[in-house]
């Protein structure tokens, strides 16, 4: 990888400046430093160098501000600090860190601007700077957008390096040695005579030592951890059943609550009769809350059961009650008045369409639920002057603010304990369940209340992935693709999400309506991409890979049609029009891995797809067999370029999981509405992939990109088009609507 350190430093000034002001917090807002979030609860004898490292005489805690949703975030963040600090796994604990403005997420902000992630022009960098500043001001400590590694890569290593050098300085004073004669190893400073001084015994002295801020990051050749297989810090606990997720947390004196909210999401509660529930065993309280009712009991199951026994009179849905009307709304959104932005318009499209063989197609993608396996839950105890919250969340600052508004205190008086999360895929970017819990807690001041959503309640109130429609046209001439015109309509995910937070939607067009389609690195005689913002329909939220999850399917599957019509080879033609070297190598890699071009027996087919999302070019080749019982997905070959693979094992696991996610939902998942209610209530109706359907998946990580990128989402968008393209190759049938089981049978 070329010169990562230098590039990172240029675009990401946080590290070095951050430490200049004193104890590491100087530059996290545009003008004035954020307060050190750890300082308030520092015990006697503890020193804090910056918000990521905490050392006392009894132990070392590394702070991972990005919550662990299963992506291994805690491990990878710890590894980055430990790399520079010369710590070994096992010598520290990891904490998710209290909510604090200092932990804003710069990498996420960088992706929110309308420039190609590869575009480093002056204007693009200016815009990224502005957005980064806006995020700093918001103090958006958000986990998402495949940003944990990009956001952390420089910051956390710098934190480790500053800690290391400051400890050496402290040791030099304590033991009357020269700093230059000291070294560090496995959590110790090594004195010239070989004596090993544990970091922990230097904590008090280090607390009185001015931090050393002119540190250099180690060159890649000296890395002990990064790039090598690691054992996740949570792997033993997750294999012995001893990890405690948010849903497992017990607080003394805690009671259990269940909720029933209007299944027409956002609709009103007109009335209810809880007389039967009130009389049931274990029921302590019936508490009306916003758009619903909570039952508080002494046991989760008793609360569920009593909630089921309440009779409700619900108001209508604030969106069209029937699915057909949702599609009709999208269909009517391809007009001037809904045009959000034309993201690119290369060449003379009309001319190219007129002078070649052209055709059109319409693509559709349904609402899809997140439904990670851990149902949403939260614990809140409301007091007279504040609150305490235990929950696994991707946006702790927002939770703090929202709980404070309900409890009637300052956000600073809400103490939040972030927890391990049993999967999210975007689900924990929402916090309505925490707000519901806070409402119940206010009605029972002083008592910790845990709310657990039943799976059915979770499904009914999952803010699903956006519904989307693509109207595509294109042309080919002389055996080559000559024009591509992509129009996509969807409601704005950004608008819907921000409507539930104390936020205005950011100005300008919504990049997610175009993500994955406009930024394809292809040069064609004509290439236009127009994004249409449909009116709000059902409330929606970020679903693993967000806009690219629908748009990548539309764009690549239609390109596959065009290439087929042109009579060209699917891989060769994509390579011919490719204008980005890093992307080209990714496509070439899957070509080699899959032995592209080799013949397959009759009834088998091979499809390729390429999508770039979150700055990561990712290509997939899928092989399927058309069996008498349906389509069987045999093999998937994946290549992606993230600049640097931090942990090859986690990378491999993540990519495979993202492929399974992309394929499973493309095959058989949708949320549909009837009478204003989601019709799918549990996994039997929204299954995803099961183990017997899982193909063999071969993964290659490339490191040609100049910037380090996250891998949580980018392998999702190419999965659906690669599968559709493979099914076409095997059967001659084009699938233009997800889920594919509407039009094809799977084994």
């Amino acid at each position, binding site marked *: 990888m070329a010169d990562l350190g230098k590039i990172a430093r240029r675009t990401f000034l946080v590290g070095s400046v951050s430490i200049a002001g004193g104890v590491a917090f100087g530059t996290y807002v545009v003008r004035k430093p954020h307060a050190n979030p750890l300082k308030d609860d520092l015990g006697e004898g503890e020193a804090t160098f910056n918000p990521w490292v905490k050392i006392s005489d009894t132990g070392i805690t590394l702070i991972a501000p990005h919550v662990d949703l299963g992506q291994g975030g805690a491990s990878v963040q710890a590894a980055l600090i430990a790399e520079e600090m010369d710590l070994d796994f096992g010598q520290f604990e990891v904490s998710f860190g209290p909510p604090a403005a200092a932990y804003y997420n710069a990498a996420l902000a960088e992706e929110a601007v309308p420039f190609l992630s590869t575009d480093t022009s002056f204007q693009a960098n200016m815009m990224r700077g502005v957005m980064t500043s806006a995020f700093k001001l918001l103090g958006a400590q958000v986990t998402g957008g495949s940003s944990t590694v990009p956001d952390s890569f420089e910051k956390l290593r710098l934190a480790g390096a500053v800690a290391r050098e400051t400890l050496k300085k402290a040791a030099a004073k304590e033991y009357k040695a020269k700093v230059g004669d000291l070294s560090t190893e496995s959590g110790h400073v090594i004195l010239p005579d070989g004596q090993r001084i544990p970091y922990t015994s230097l904590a008090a002295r280090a607390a009185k030592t001015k931090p050393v801020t002119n540190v250099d990051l180690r060159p890649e050749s000296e890395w002990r951890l990064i790039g090598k297989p690691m054992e996740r810090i949570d*792997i033993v606990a997750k294999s012995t*059943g*001893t990890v405690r997720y948010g849903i497992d947390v017990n607080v003394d004196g805690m009671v259990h609550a269940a909720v029933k909210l209007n299944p027409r999401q956002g609709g009103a509660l007109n009335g209810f009769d809880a007389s039967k529930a009130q009389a049931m065993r274990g029921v302590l309280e019936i508490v009306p809350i916003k758009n619903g009712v909570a039952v508080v009991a002494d046991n989760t199951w008793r609360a569920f059961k009593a909630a089921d026994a309440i009779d409700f009179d619900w108001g209508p849905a604030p969106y069209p009650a029937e699915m057909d009307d949702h599609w009709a709304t999208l269909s009517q959104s391809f007009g001037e008045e809904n045009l959000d932005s034309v993201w690119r318009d290369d060449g003379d499209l009309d001319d190219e369409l007129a002078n070649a063989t052209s055709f059109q197609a319409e693509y559709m993608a349904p609402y899809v639920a997140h439904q990670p396996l851990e149902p949403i839950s939260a614990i809140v105890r409301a007091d007279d002057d504040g609150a305490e919250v235990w929950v696994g969340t991707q946006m702790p600052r927002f939770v703090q603010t929202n709980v404070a508004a309900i409890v009637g205190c300052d956000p600073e008086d809400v103490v939040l304990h972030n927890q391990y999360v049993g999967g999210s895929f975007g689900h924990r970017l929402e916090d309505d369940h925490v707000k519901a819990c806070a409402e119940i807690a206010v009605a029972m001041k002083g008592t910790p209340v845990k709310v657990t959503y039943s*799976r059915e309640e979770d499904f009914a109130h999952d803010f699903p992935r956006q519904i989307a429609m693509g109207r595509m046209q294109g042309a080919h001439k002389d055996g080559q693709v000559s024009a591509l015109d992509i129009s996509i309509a969807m409601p704005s995910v950004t608008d819907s999400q921000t409507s539930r937070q104390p936020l205005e939607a950011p100005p300008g067009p919504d990049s997610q309506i175009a993500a994955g389609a406009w930024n394809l690195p292809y040069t064609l005689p004509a290439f236009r991409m127009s994004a249409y913002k449909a009116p709000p329909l059902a409330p929606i939220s970020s679903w693993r890979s967000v806009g690219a999850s629908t748009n990548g399917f539309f764009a690549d599957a239609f390109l596959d049609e065009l290439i087929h019509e042109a009579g060209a080879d699917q891989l060769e033609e994509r390579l011919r029009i490719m204008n980005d070297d890093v992307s080209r190598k990714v496509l070439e890699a899957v070509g080699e891995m899959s032995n592209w071009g080799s013949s397959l027996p009759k009834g088998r087919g091979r499809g390729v797809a390429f999508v770039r999302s979150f700055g990561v070019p990712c290509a997939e080749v899928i092989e399927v067999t058309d069996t008498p019982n349906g389509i069987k997905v045999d093999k998937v070959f994946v290549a992606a370029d993230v600049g640097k693979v931090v942990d090859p094992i986690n990378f491999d696991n993540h990519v495979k999981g993202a492929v399974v996610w992309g394929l499973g939902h493309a095959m058989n998942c949708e949320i549909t509405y009837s009478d204003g209610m989601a019709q799918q209530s549990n996994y039997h109706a929204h299954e995803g992939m099961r*183990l017997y359907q899982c193909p063999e998946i071969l993964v290659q990580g490339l490191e040609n990109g100049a910037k380090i990128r996250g891998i949580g989402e980018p392998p999702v968008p190419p999965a659906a088009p690669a599968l559709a393209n493979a099914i076409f190759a095997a059967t001659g049938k084009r699938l233009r609507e997800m889920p594919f089981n509407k039009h094809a049978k799977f084994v």
Partner: protein
Amino acid sequence: MKMNVDGTSYDVDVEDEMPLLWVLRDELNIKGPKYGCGIAQCGACTVHIDGLAVRSCSIPAQLAADKDITTIEGLGNDETRHAVQEAWIEHQVAQCGYCQSGQIMSAASFLLLNPSPTDDQIDQAMSANLCRCGTYPRIREAIKTAAAKLRGEA
């Protein structure tokens, strides 16, 4: 009624129809078995009753009383881990890990009945346990490793 869980006997005062899962989680504070779907669709709540894997979310307490119940925490612990747990660690199967208690309990019971399973048999036996993170490729490999360990070959 009396519950024997992981070698300890408990007296519990619950409705006959309370699912075993909620007796374990809320009455006995045994949190290894997870609530996922409540209708035996996902397998996150899997425990052993008299050595056989069952979905604790769908077993009434009454039917579990006086039987020997084993949860993930009784299958093995940090000192003495079960071969399946060892294999799960070796292959670093878990991502979020929430389904893995159930996956491991299903795998342990399955390997007891079928010590040398074929790939197809593994697929069939393990397909009732849902993993939303998509760790299936690693689950397959870990089961093979665990089977070899249990046969004394690894």
